[in-house]
């Protein structure tokens, strides 16, 4: 795919557990255009999260290349990758992974601490992100004072506050009840359709996957089928 935002080519990832060799990804090829919303499905251990981590620069491939926005991230050093992630990637986790000692505002502000923005600007960006996820009235609440759905909204606000190129979601509804899960999916769809965010989402939930534009299936490290919703 020539104009892909994310271009994965012949990607291999091998883990070793003692003398055991585990081929998690075996020559995966994938192209994701800007503005796409892709759901990655597959059984446990199929390599979904590994692929997501590799695209997000959290891990390094054994072989193959990954380009995001035309930049080969598999060639970047650890420090360069960290800075690249801060600028281009927003992560949403299954268990939200908020810092319990910080309020919603504090959590959403975290990625902005790595930018050169002043306090006032950071405050404005945080307020905007919290408004987008509909949590303005919970800004001063700590994670323990929020419901699961609200915590995930804070997680999404933290992911979008730097206006990243790519949003990577690892089972964002996996720990939520159906109603909250639907709300989170509606929010992700809004971010994709109204704000033009490119989203790659790993999920086990067919209902969540159905909200994406495309669904990709991974099995034993091989991308098997692709379905357009």
């Amino acid at each position, binding site marked *: 795919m020539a104009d892909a935002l994310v271009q994965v080519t012949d990607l291999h990832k091998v883990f070793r557990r003692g003398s055991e060799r585990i081929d998690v990804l075996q020559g995966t090829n994938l192209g994701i255009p800007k503005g796409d919303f892709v759901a990655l499905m597959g059984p446990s251990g199929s390599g979904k999260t590994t692929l997501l981590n590799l695209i997000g620069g959290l891990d390094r491939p054994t072989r193959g290349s990954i380009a995001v926005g035309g930049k080969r991230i598999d060639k970047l050093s650890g420090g360069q990758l960290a800075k690249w992630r801060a600028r281009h990637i927003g992560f949403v986790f299954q268990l939200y*992974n908020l810092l319990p000692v910080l309020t919603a505002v504090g959590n959403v502000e975290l990625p902005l601490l790595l930018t050169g923005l002043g306090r006032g600007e950071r405050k404005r960006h945080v307020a905007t992100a919290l408004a987008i996820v509909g949590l303005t009235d919970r800004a001063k609440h700590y994670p323990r004072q929020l419901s699961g759905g609200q915590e995930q909204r804070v997680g999404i606000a933290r992911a979008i506050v730097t206006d990243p190129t790519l949003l990577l979601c690892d089972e964002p509804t996996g720990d939520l009840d159906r109603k909250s899960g639907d709300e989170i999916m509606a929010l992700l769809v809004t971010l994709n359709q109204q704000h033009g965010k490119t989203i790659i989402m790993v999920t086990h939930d067919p209902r969540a996957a159905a909200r994406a534009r495309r669904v990709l299936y991974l099995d034993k490290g091989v991308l098997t089928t692709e379905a357009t919703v």
Partner: protein
Amino acid sequence: MKFLPLIWHNLMRRKIRTIFTLLSILVAFVLYGYLAALSAGFSAGVDVADADRLVLIHKVSLIQLLPISYGPRIAQTEGVVDVCHFTFFGGIYQKKQSNFFMQMPVVPECLFKLYPEFVLPDAQKKAWLADRTGAIVGRATANRFGWKVDDRVPLQATIWQQRDRQTTWTFTIDGIYDGAKKGVDTTQFFFHYDYFDEARWFGQGMVGWYVIRVDHPERAADVAKRLDAMFANSPEETKTTAEKAFAQAFLNQIGDIGLIIRSILAVVFFVLLFVAGNTMAQSVRERTNELAVLKTLGFTNPGVLALVLAESCCLAVVGGGLGLALVTLLTRAGDPTGGLIPGFILRARDVLVGVGLTLALGIVAGVFPALRATRLRIADALRRS
């Protein structure tokens, strides 16, 4: 600065643990400050001792007396400028052993010539010279007992009885002297030797030791040698040393104070290192997932290292800073013996060393947990959570 709230909130995550660690650090630094002040107090005499002053004592020990006739012979020795004798009186105020302070009969004119660092108003000096039963006292002791000029002070003699076997000697306070510089001993009490010599029951014509000023400090060793040679083979042979060495030797009778204090502090800080290090290690272990999240968000390894080290340093600086502030206040209240250690002060250089120690403690306690945090592999840490 923008990371300060994050650092502070992380420290306050386990309030009880943080408070106990802070208290351990605080107590250690109070102890450090106290011991540093104690060390300063003990070495004050050594620090203010002049290089051109010698002390001549009986060769056997300081307790043995010397004839007063040695004075003129010493004064005639080439290189000697002034000579003054002192005798240990050993009186107790109000019959309480804890009320001890140094009292010595002296020749007043001689004392002021030899010790210009004792500052006494002229009027008080004149009054003392004219008053045979008068005495002067240092500011520290005057403050300790609330004495004022013209007060009558009875001292209970432990050695020197009067001719009528009375043990109570009563003196009039004619003056209160101050030190011309920091560290000068202002606990001492001086009275007229003439009066003492006439009134005492035994020991007439004998003195405790001589303090001698030489014309050039570099000649001090030579003069000391000649003085001891002059009194060799006499019933009272002598031993002459520099005042500094004398003060140091006097101090060494108690033990090597500096070594004792350094040893105690080394043990305290070694233990403290484990306390603070354990707190930081636990804190990092508990936050493996959060540190992985921070790295996911774009915090670099040096950034995470700095964050953990900043937490550790913050803990050490707050605890150590509070400890140093507290011990500064405590030492300003005076020495714990109530005046026996006149130079008991927390010196600026000890405070600076304390500040350096807080930072060193923070860095050493935090460096291993911080390195562990940087080695964290994000994907593994997130998978484990």
